[in-house]
């Protein structure tokens, strides 16, 4: 089966990301595919390349990147939600005349249509809320 996941919770004010990562791993173990992982609301903060995780806490950004790298997952960050929370790609940094991009490698900024499109082409949609 094809799954789409959406994460809405902020990385450090909710347990959403670790739950979603464990769920992604189980979905893949079961032989299913993940069409797209979509980050919405405050969940977009996990894509910042300026995050420094304390040594005794999970590095959620790194965990997502590793999952994406190992399984070719598409980590899609809502562009409208991302921009207003400081998540900018190289292209957007240029466009808004910012000194540096802040989007981590492995993530991409996409429109909300990419969530609807993923839902339309998947068998299952699972949302981890705020």
């Amino acid at each position, binding site marked *: 089966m094809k799954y789409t996941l959406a994460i809405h919770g902020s990385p450090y004010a909710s347990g959403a990301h670790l739950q979603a990562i464990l769920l992604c791993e189980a979905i893949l173990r079961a032989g299913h595919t993940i069409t797209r992982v979509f980050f919405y609301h405050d969940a977009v903060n996990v894509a910042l390349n300026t995050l420094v995780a304390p040594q005794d806490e999970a590095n959620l950004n790194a965990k997502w990147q590793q999952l994406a790298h190992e399984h070719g997952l598409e980590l899609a960050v809502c562009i409208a939600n991302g921009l207003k929370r400081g998540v900018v790609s190289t292209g957007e940094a240029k466009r808004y005349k910012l000194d540096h991009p802040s989007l981590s490698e492995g993530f991409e900024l996409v429109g909300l249509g990419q969530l609807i499109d993923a839902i339309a082409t998947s068998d*299952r*949609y*699972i949302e981890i809320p705020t």
Partner: protein
Amino acid sequence: MAMHLVFSVNGWKACEPCTSADDIIVLMGDGVYATPKQQVYAIADDLQVRGMFNNTNPSMISISYDDFVSLTESHHPSISWND
């Protein structure tokens, strides 16, 4: 046959009246603090973390994420409750 994912105690209060007889309920994260009277599933990791593993009521069935995925195969759509 819907799958209700409950993420908070208040989420369960909101979810309970909106369930049908053949729906299933899975408690996740702080949702495991809810005290439903009917049979529900709860994520084992989330029970363990909160010191709830040996304190669940008999109607609560603890499950792994692999079990969770099996439930998603047979139940659809999934609805998340976090009130």
